[in-house]
């Protein structure tokens, strides 16, 4: 057992396949990613190729970017052990203020955006204050917020629709501009794709070097090559699709905002002290406090951050629909929460990832979009989405309680967690949460050691 962990494995190993997508860190997404790919393929076939047409994927990004932005904030709130029901109302409240600022007070679009973020920050500080420093459960605080900010939106806006100008609409409706020679594609989009591929290669090389320095087990080199080829290929194909849509369209601005946020928040949650503190507080508040973590500040931060992101999501929505209305953002909180839980977070906190939540959100997005393409009515779409949420989390929980993987379990399974070795020891009664998700950073128990 205490042998050094530098054994170089050779030959095929299922874990190498998994490490294609996890890179040794968060492997949880692998399963959900598999589900996403499966859903895309199913709808691609079922809709006769409409799903992956440029116009449609551009539409999906524009239509769901704000939900995915909410999911980023929501997963952090949920990891910390809270919930935020107010995001839709906060989005609507911010939207009306921003729209009025431009219409009545002649704010330029950029100043309006800053104003919107400040409004989100203030709302978040208000809610964070009640949650962190008074100790009112976030469920209650944000349920109150849901009413307060919805009412605020309708009070300020007189329950009317307020249009926004073209400059502002860019964040919701805009695309990367056409630049350079006309090659029949959107050059910037293709360039973006190539840059992303180069970054992927760079990260892969750096990752392998780091692991070598650590003397840790590295998957065989072919997995690295395969990973870069697969991921790079997906990126390039996606870039090509986005670049070859209707003239005047390309990769949406809202998609770029989303991508930047995903990268930034993945880094924040994985690699920074504040990220560690969020997981620590959600995993065991008392232990975190006894380790010197200021749990109040952490709770304040996640609640405030959520409202800032909700404000941003609200503005993108207003920009896309060209106006702020009294019912903007209705039900968003549920979509965001569903995305997070499909993405493998635990109801009891401590578990979840930004990437997983984004993939969970995309599962819902592709599903809704595909069903809409098939002309399924929205009442049925709701029923199906509800069932998907229930079944996805249910299968996860069931597998864990049974200690054996099934199809989705095999994909979402956290290797080693269900291995026999553990069960043999006096099993701890403190085995993970009811909510779903084994710890997401566990790496396979190497029984060969």
């Amino acid at each position, binding site marked *: 057992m*205490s042998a050094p962990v530098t054994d170089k494995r050779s030959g095929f190993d299922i874990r190498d396949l998994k490490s294609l997508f996890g890179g040794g860190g968060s492997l949880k997404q692998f399963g959900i990613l598999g589900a996403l790919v499966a859903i895309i393929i199913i709808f691609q076939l079922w809709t006769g190729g409409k799903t992956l047409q440029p116009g449609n994927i551009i539409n999906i990004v524009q239509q769901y970017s704000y939900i995915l932005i909410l999911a980023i904030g929501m997963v952090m709130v949920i990891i910390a052990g809270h919930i935020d029901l107010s995001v839709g109302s906060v989005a609507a409240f911010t939207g009306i203020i921003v729209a009025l600022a431009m219409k009545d007070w002649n704010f330029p679009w950029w100043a309006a955006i800053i104003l919107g973020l400040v409004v989100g920050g203030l709302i978040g500080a208000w809610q964070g204050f009640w949650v962190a420093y008074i100790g009112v459960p976030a469920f209650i605080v944000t349920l109150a917020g849901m009413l307060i900010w919805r009412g605020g939106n309708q009070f300020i806006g007189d329950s009317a629709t307020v249009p926004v100008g073209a400059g502002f609409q860019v964040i919701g409706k805009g695309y990367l501009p056409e630049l350079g020679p006309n090659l029949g594609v959107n050059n910037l989009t293709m360039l973006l794709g190539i840059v992303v591929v180069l970054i992927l290669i760079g990260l892969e090389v750096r990752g392998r070097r*780091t692991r070598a320095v650590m*003397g840790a087990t590295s998957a065989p080199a072919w997995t690295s090559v395969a990973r870069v080829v697969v991921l790079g290929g997906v990126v390039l194909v996606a870039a090509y699709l986005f670049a070859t849509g209707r003239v005047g369209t390309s990769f949406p601005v809202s998609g770029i905002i989303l991508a930047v946020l995903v990268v930034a928040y993945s880094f924040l949650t994985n690699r*920074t002290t504040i990220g560690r503190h969020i997981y620590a507080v959600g995993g065991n508040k008392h232990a975190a406090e*006894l*380790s*010197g973590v200021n749990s109040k500040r952490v709770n304040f931060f996640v609640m405030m951050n959520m409202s800032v992101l909700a404000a941003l999501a609200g503005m993108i929505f207003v920009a896309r629909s060209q106006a702020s209305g009294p019912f903007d953002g209705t039900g968003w909180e549920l979509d965001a929460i569903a995305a997070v839980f499909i993405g493998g977070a635990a109801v009891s906190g401590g578990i979840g990832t930004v990437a997983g939540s984004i993939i969970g959100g995309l599962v819902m997005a592709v599903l809704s979009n595909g069903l809409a393409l098939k002309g399924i009515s929205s009442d049925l779409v709701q029923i199906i989405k509800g069932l998907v949420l229930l079944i996805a989390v249910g299968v996860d929980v069931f597998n864990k309680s049974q200690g054996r993987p099934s199809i989705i379990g095999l994909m979402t399974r956290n290797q080693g967690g269900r291995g026999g070795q553990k069960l043999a020891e*006096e099993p701890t009664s403190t085995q993970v949460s009811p909510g779903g998700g084994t710890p997401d950073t566990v*790496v396979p128990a190497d029984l060969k050691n």
Partner: protein
Amino acid sequence: METAHNAHPTILEMRSITKEFPGVKALDKVSLTVRAEEIHAICGENGAGKSTLMKVLSGVYPFGTYDGDIVYEGQVVRFRDIKQSEAAGIVIIHQELALIPELSITENIFLGNEPGRRGIINWVDAQRRAVELLARVGLDDDPDTQVKNIGVGKQQLVEIAKALNKNVKLLILDEPTAALNESDSQHLLDLIRGLKGKGISSIMISHKLNEIEQIADQITIIRDGKSIETLDVVADGVDEDRIIRGMVGRTLGNRFPEHTATIGEVFFEVRDWTVQHPLTAERLVVKNSSFTVRRGEVVGFAGLMGAGRTELAMSLFGRSYGKFISGQVFKDGEEIKLRTVAEAIGHGIAYVSEDRKSLGLNLLDTIKRSIVSAKLSKISRGVVVNELEEAQVSEQYRKSLRIKTPTVEEGVTKLSGGNQQKVVLAKWMFTDPDLLILDEPTRGIDVGAKAEVYQIIRDLAARGTGIIMISSELPELLGVSDRIYTIFEGKITNELPVAQADPETLMRSMTSSSQKAVA
């Protein structure tokens, strides 16, 4: 003393029980024979298979998932779940008590077994029977008291009352005294012995070998999933060393390491430390306590549970307990303020809590992330954590503390208690403490791991770290400490160099005024 038990018939025979989990044989042809009116102890290191065996017996692992036969009262039984084994009179009381804190004693006793008809509970009947049952276990609290308001010792008694209500014939106790202080433990052991006289056999799993020696008639030793031997306590003249030899398969030399440290000057001093109970304003849990720690010295704190040992330590550690009233802390001659945990860590103070699972670790986390969690700044630039350093640091601790795990990427839940404790120790060693406060550092870990923890403590002392060790186990305090304070009802009552300390003297100082049961 224990004369006639051979005359009693066999009540339980587990024959050649084998239980496999994928890839691992947890139990390998284990046999166990328990006679009527017998207290049968099962000893073994953590992970030896004791709990698994009890789960097979009580139906948690149903018939069909194991090989071998269970013969109970002369018949082969096939329990499909706990309900069936309980109906047959086999009741298991787990280490983590299964009581509902918000419910009353009565409600807990009859939970799942409520007297009455068609779902309407007959509370008058329940109340009457509860009083009877409580009398049998020697508990005189009002049966309407909420369980959260009575101490762990009394909660344990409520569990036994609950078992008695089910007409228990064979009581299984998993580490029943792990969380109890000496007097509560003694009361519980007396009760178990009393039950034996009334025809109730017990199977007891415990790490406290002195208790086993004192109470058990027979001892079965399990090692690596195999039953090694069964000893008759009287006939075989069993003592602690004999049990340990069976458990570890070798004779442990000296269980306590040599004191090699050269003790330096006083560097840490607490004066007149007074702390108020967090809820009750008039109640002082720590009263005018003053003490000193020298460099390289292991200072023991002896006291019964509830005496204020943990409260003293936690209130020092960034006011993590109660309400600060008065007192001063000096380090290297200068007064320091320890208002938050972060401040305490900054001043080089570390506190390893007595409750590893609820206060010491985030059980969802990996080993490496746990180890660096109390001083992330040490491996961070600004707010960015250097994961390479994190891996290197934790790998060093894995080697130097011999944490048994294939990699530091494992979740901490997967470790045994002893190895979890090593992770907690590593976590606090990583903060480079000048003063390390250890609260019950060997609770719930097996004999081998204990010896390793003692060695780690002495090694740290040898490097000049001042150590405060709080422990309920007097032999451990006497074996590891250089100097011992005793604490009783929030006051420091005595201070003795270890050479002048013996269990009797300590116990007297720990109970200096009339001893009351602590609620």
